[in-house]
Structure formats: structure tokens, C-alpha cells
């Protein structure tokens, strides 16, 4: 019967409450958890090559799509090759969803042709394409093109050859503009005029700057979630999560008294550790991943329940508190180990063989169970030891109910 245990417990409690307050109110840690499209809103497009492609082609497609995504103003797009001939592009938080879906996989082959369709130059000869509002006298927006050395030369030759004749500009085989050459142009600059809005011009300029795709792509899946929908569901789910946690906490105290309260402390510690690891890994939270968090939290609670049930049993068989704690822990350890290892094996297999959604679930489940194992075995045990050391344990009813 010493006060050492009590002061230790109080110190840990104060520390945990302080940390919990800091990470929820002062510097909300959830703000640092990246959210997937289904939570945050945004666009996911799966594009597939319409004819056989080489790995090198796909690499090029990936680079071009990534360039375009950045050009559309997305801060952290995720672009990945999958199944050899598909590209998955996730554009979280993008504003103009419909335009992005159509534009992302557009081939964007730019061609200048002479009056009889003679090829002059293509998008490959471009150095830059920039959108601007049309000057006085014009309407809508324009795109200013700058050619490289070869392009500049080809354009100069062509404008000389076709002086006072029409030159046509084609995008993916569609005529977007035909204009009569007024003068020989030797500085390598040209302008596409008469484009609807500045925003449309900006999108097109991004496509032209990124270069044409080496292979035509088609959209096989496009998902757009509006940000407001995501935000309202996140808010509701956060509140629901807090209520669920409070209910679990109350239940544990009701069922296991002081030990239940210690378990609540261990669970708070577990949650902070878990979220911290997810933030450190830069993990992108999706709805299936939330399911993984919920399941692993359930398993964490279960670990504590198993421990207390075992300790209680040993106490009933007449052992002293110290021996009961040791023996209860040893027996609970094996059950917790086997169930947790099985779950982690399942998570690893799901990660390796599952697709995107299943993978998110596998990561949070596997990590969550591993962290839960550590907190239940190390932290809960430490708290129980401190409690055993204190006067509190003298009253069994207070301790375990």
C-alpha cells in the first residue's frame, strides 16, 4: 500500500488528458490526415489504352497525365499505372470536375495544316502554350503558342509558301480554326483565337503544353464527389465517432470499474498513437480505411476485455491480486496474440492481392491491430501494475466490479 502507484497513475492521466486536449482542440491532428476522394470530394478517373501499349508508352502517358493534373491546379494528384494498360488518376479537391474528367484523357494532338491539308507542324514542336484573354477587337480567349527551333523554321517556311492562303489548326483531327496568313512569321509565335472562356483556354493550353498522348485513352470509370457532400458526411461521421467512443468509454467503466477506466486511458493512448502513425506515413484516409480503423478499435477494446475477464477469473479462484494479474495476463496474452496475428496475416494478404479500396482497409486494419497489441500488452499492463501498487486495489469492487 503505497502512494507511488497513485501518483504514477495521476501523472499519466494528466499527461493523456493534456495530449488529448492538445491534439483535438489546440492543434487538431485529424487536420493532418489526408483524405481520399470519397471523403474530401474530387475526381477519380480510370483511363484505359484503346490499343496495345508498351511499358515505355505507359510511363509517358503517366508523366503527361500528371503534368495535366498539376496544370488543372490540383495540389496532390495521385497518378498510377495499373494492369499494364490503365491509368488511375485521383484529383482531390478539384473545382471543375466535368471538364477535368473529359480533358484528362484527351489525346490533344495539335496539327497545323496547309490549304490542301499538307502537314506543317504538330504539337511536338511546341515549347509553350499560354492562355490569355483576347485583346481589343477579339472576343473570348486565345492561346499563345511558342514553337521550338525546328517548329519556328517550319512555320516560317509555311507562312511564306502559303502567304494570303488559309492555314488550318486541328485538334485530335477536328478543325478548330482556319485563318488566312497575313504575313511571314519568323519569330516562332502563333495564336489560336476564338476559344470560349478563359477557363476553357487554360485547360486546352495545359493539354497542349503537356504534349499529345502516345496512345488514345478511353474513360472506363469516372467518379466525381462534390466537396460539399464529402464535407457534410465527414462532419457527421466525426460527431458519430466521438459519440461512439464516449459510449465505449462509459460501457468499459460500467462493466469493469477502475480497470475499465484504465482501459479507456489505454484506448486514448492507442488512438493517438494510431493517428500519429497514419499522419507520419502520409496515409490517405478513405471510407474503407475508416472501416479498418473501426474494426481495429473493436479488437483493441476486445483485448482489454479479455485481459480483465481473465484477471477476474483468477481472482475468483482465490489468487492474490499480484498473482492474478500476472497469471491473467499470461493467459490472455496467448489468445490476443493468436487472434491478432491471424488478423494481421489477413490484412497483409488483402494488401498484396486487393485493389485500391481493399488496400486502404488492409493498411488501417493491420497497423491498427499491431498498435492495439502493443498498447494492450504494454500500456494496459503497466497501468494495472501501477494500480495494483496503489491503495485503490484494496477494494476489489472498485477495481474490477
Amino acid at each position, binding site marked *: 500500500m503505497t502512494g507511488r502507484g497513485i501518483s504514477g497513475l495521476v501523472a499519466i492521466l494528466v499527461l493523456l488528458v493534456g495530449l488529448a486536449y492538445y491534439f483535438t482542440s489546440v492543434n487538431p491532428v485529424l487536420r493532418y490526415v489526408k483524405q481520399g476522394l*470519397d471523403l474530401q470530394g474530387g475526381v477519380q478517373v480510370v483511363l484505359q489504352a484503346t490499343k496495345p501499349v508498351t511499358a515505355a508508352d505507359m510511363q509517358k502517358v503517366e508523366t503527361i497525365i500528371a503534368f495535366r493534373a498539376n496544370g488543372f491546379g490540383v495540389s496532390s494528384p495521385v497518378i498510377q499505372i495499373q494492369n499494364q494498360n490503365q491509368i488511375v488518376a485521383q484529383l482531390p479537391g478539384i473545382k471543375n*470536375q*466535368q471538364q477535368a*474528367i*473529359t480533358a484528362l484523357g484527351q489525346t490533344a494532338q495539335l496539327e497545323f495544316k496547309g490549304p490542301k491539308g499538307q502537314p506543317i507542324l504538330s504539337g511536338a514542336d511546341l515549347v509553350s502554350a499560354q492562355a490569355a484573354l483576347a485583346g481589343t477587337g477579339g472576343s473570348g480567349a486565345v492561346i499563345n503558342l511558342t514553337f521550338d527551333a525546328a517548329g519556328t523554321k517550319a512555320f516560317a517556311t509555311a507562312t511564306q509558301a502559303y502567304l494570303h492562303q488559309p492555314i488550318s489548326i486541328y485538334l485530335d483531327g477536328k478543325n478548330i480554326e482556319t485563318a488566312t496568313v497575313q504575313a511571314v512569321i519568323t519569330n516562332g509565335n502563333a495564336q489560336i483565337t476564338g476559344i470560349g472562356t478563359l477557363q476553357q483556354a487554360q485547360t486546352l493550353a495545359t493539354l497542349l503544353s503537356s504534349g499529345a498522348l502516345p496512345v488514345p485513352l478511353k*474513360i*472506363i*470509370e*469516372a*467518379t*466525381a*464527389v*462534390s466537396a460539399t*457532400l464529402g464535407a*457534410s*458526411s*465527414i462532419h*457527421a*461521421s466525426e460527431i*458519430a*465517432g466521438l*459519440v*461512439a467512443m464516449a*459510449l*465505449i468509454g462509459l*460501457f*468499459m467503466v460500467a462493466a469493469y470499474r477502475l480497470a475499465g477506466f484504465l482501459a479507456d486511458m489505454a484506448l486514448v493512448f492507442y488512438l493517438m498513437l494510431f493517428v500519429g502513425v497514419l499522419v507520419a506515413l502520409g496515409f490517405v484516409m478513405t*471510407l*474503407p480505411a*475508416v*472501416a*479498418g480503423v*473501426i*474494426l481495429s*478499435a*473493436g*479488437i483493441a*477494446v*476486445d483485448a482489454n*476485455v479479455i485481459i480483465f*475477464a481473465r484477471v477476474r*477469473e483468477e481472482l475468483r479462484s482465490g489468487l492474490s491480486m499480484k498473482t492474478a494479474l500476472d497469471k491473467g495476463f499470461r493467459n490472455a496474452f*496467448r*489468445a490476443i496474440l*493468436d*487472434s*491478432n*496475428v*491471424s*488478423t494481421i*496475416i*489477413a490484412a497483409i*494478404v*488483402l494488401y498484396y*492481392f*486487393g*485493389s485500391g*479500396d*481493399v488496400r486502404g*482497409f488492409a493498411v488501417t486494419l493491420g497497423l491498427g491491430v499491431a498498435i492495439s497489441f502493443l498498447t494492450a500488452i504494454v500500456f494496459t499492463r503497466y497501468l494495472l501494475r501501477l494500480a495494483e501498487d496503489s491503495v485503490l486495489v484494496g477494494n476489489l469492487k472498485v477495481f474490477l466490479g
Partner: protein
Amino acid sequence: MRFNFDFMGRRRQFYILSAVILVVAVGGFFLRGLNLGIDFTGGIQMQVHFNKPVQLSAVDATLRKDGISNYFAVYLGKGDQNVQISMPAVSETLRAKVDQSLTKSVGPYTITSFTKVTGSFSSQVVQGGVIAVLLASLGIILYMMIRFDLRFAVAGIFAVFWDAFVSLGLVALIHFTVNAPFVAGVLTIIGYSINDRIIIFDRVRENLKKRGKESLAEIVNLSLNQTLGRSIATATVVVVAMLAILFLGGATTQDLAATVVIGVVFGAYSSILLASPIWFDWMSRVEAEAAATAVRVGRAPAPKRQALVADPEAEQAVRRRTPQNRGRGRKRRRRR
């Protein structure tokens, strides 16, 4: 709380109950079918907000005029301004045309949510998920064979699949729309189910070692009664947490929570009343055969078995207590 139920004595009733539940669920699954959302069926689903209240018939007429078949338009919420339109995955050009004609003939609107999934892609996702789950089950069987034995592993996984099928069937019966997150819900059920089984089997394994002299039925009953408090506490905690999410959470998390509640309730049921009886019947048969061999050859059963299994007298005691288990082997085979 201490319990003293004779679970094994009533296991026949529980087998029948489990079979009935499975038949209802599988019947629901095949007769009513899962209410598959766009993630699985493929197609376009968009939620639009019109600037003023609109008539659904006007939306219908426009879609029909543009040559869209199998469309489906419903109001969302109140005020007749929010409409959800589902239609097959048409080309972008046709969709753009629909866009224009809706604006022209019904009224200007903004798209609040847009999803397009082609059929081939969604079947890919489901197939991949199923294969991953089967491989994960294989991994768990292997682990359980090392830590427990084959009988525990097979009985456990059999009940895991029972859980999964029953949950699928009930979701089909309730008929809420399932989309991609449902896959996560089913995975959660399977994960919970595995966890639950092992906790109980661990106790059976422990009692087998500690109380080798007692009959199998006594050992399994004792183990289930000892773990019952924990089973109830954990299931309650998870169900209460899920109900909070079901009633307070956003629309996207609600279906997930509903699926998990169903799974947890049936997971707790099948750990106690399906997985354990299956293991018990299998183990009893192995014991009976070992005892019979021992009697014929005139020596004690093989040492390994003896470590796991009660001695012949205890085995006789089990047989005496349950006279109907004569010829159980044949019956069991017929039942499976």
C-alpha cells in the same frame, strides 16, 4: 457473471437453427438479390440541383427523347429541386447532349455528385476482392494449423463463411443499396469473425491441456461459458459504437455500420453455436475412432492424441450421455 449453459447438449437444435438462418439468407440472396448500386452494376449516376422545383415527368421525357433507355430519376429530399438520375454508361458525347437538353427543356441545374462506372471495371473490383478474401482465408487456415490444428482451422473458417453468406443474404433481404464501401463492410465482418473464433478456440485449447480427464462436452461447455462474458461485452461494445455511427454518421458511413452490426451479431452467434459444435463433433469422432483402434489392438491410443483428447472412459461417458450419437458419423456426412 458466471454462466453454466449446456451448449453441446443442445447442439443439434443449434445446427438446425444455423441451417434455417442460412437457408433464409441464401434464399433472400437468390430470390430478392442484392440491391446493387452503381459501383457494381456500372452506369452513370448523378445528383443534380435545379434552380427551381421541377417535374420528374419533364426529366423523364427529356431523357427518353435523347434515346436513353433504362434511366431512373427520383427526387432527393424535399422541395422537388434535387433529382438523382441513374442511367447506363453512355458516351461522353451523348451525356453532354443530355446535359444540354435537360438545361433547355427542364431548367438550369448544377451537378452535386457525378459517378460513372463501366461494367467491366466493377466486376474486376469484385473479382479481385473475392480472390483476396479466399487467399486471406487460406493464410489464416495455415496459421491456425500451426498454432491449433486442422480441425480448429476448418471449423473456424467454415463458420467465417457462414457469417459472410448470412450477412450478404440479410443485406439482400433488407435491400439497402450496396456500393463499393459494402466490400469494406464484408471484410470487416470476416475480420471480426476470425478474431472472435480464435479467442474461444484458445480457451478450448487451454482447457484440453489443463483438464484432459474431463469429457470433451464438459471441456467445450466450460470454455464457452468462461468466454461468454467476454463475448457479450465485446459484441455489445461494437454494436453500440456502430449504432451511434448508423444514426449519427453521414450517409456514406451508414450502410457500412448497418452491415457491420449484422455481421457482429451473427459472428458472435456462430463462434459459440456453430464453430464450436462443428469442432466438437469432429473431435468426438476422431476420439471414438482412436478409442476403438486402441481396444482392437489392445493398447493405449497414440500419445499425440492422448495429449489432446480425453481418455477412453471419459469418452464412454460422453457416449452414454448422448445415446443419439450412435452412427453420428454417417449422419454428419449426410448433413454436410
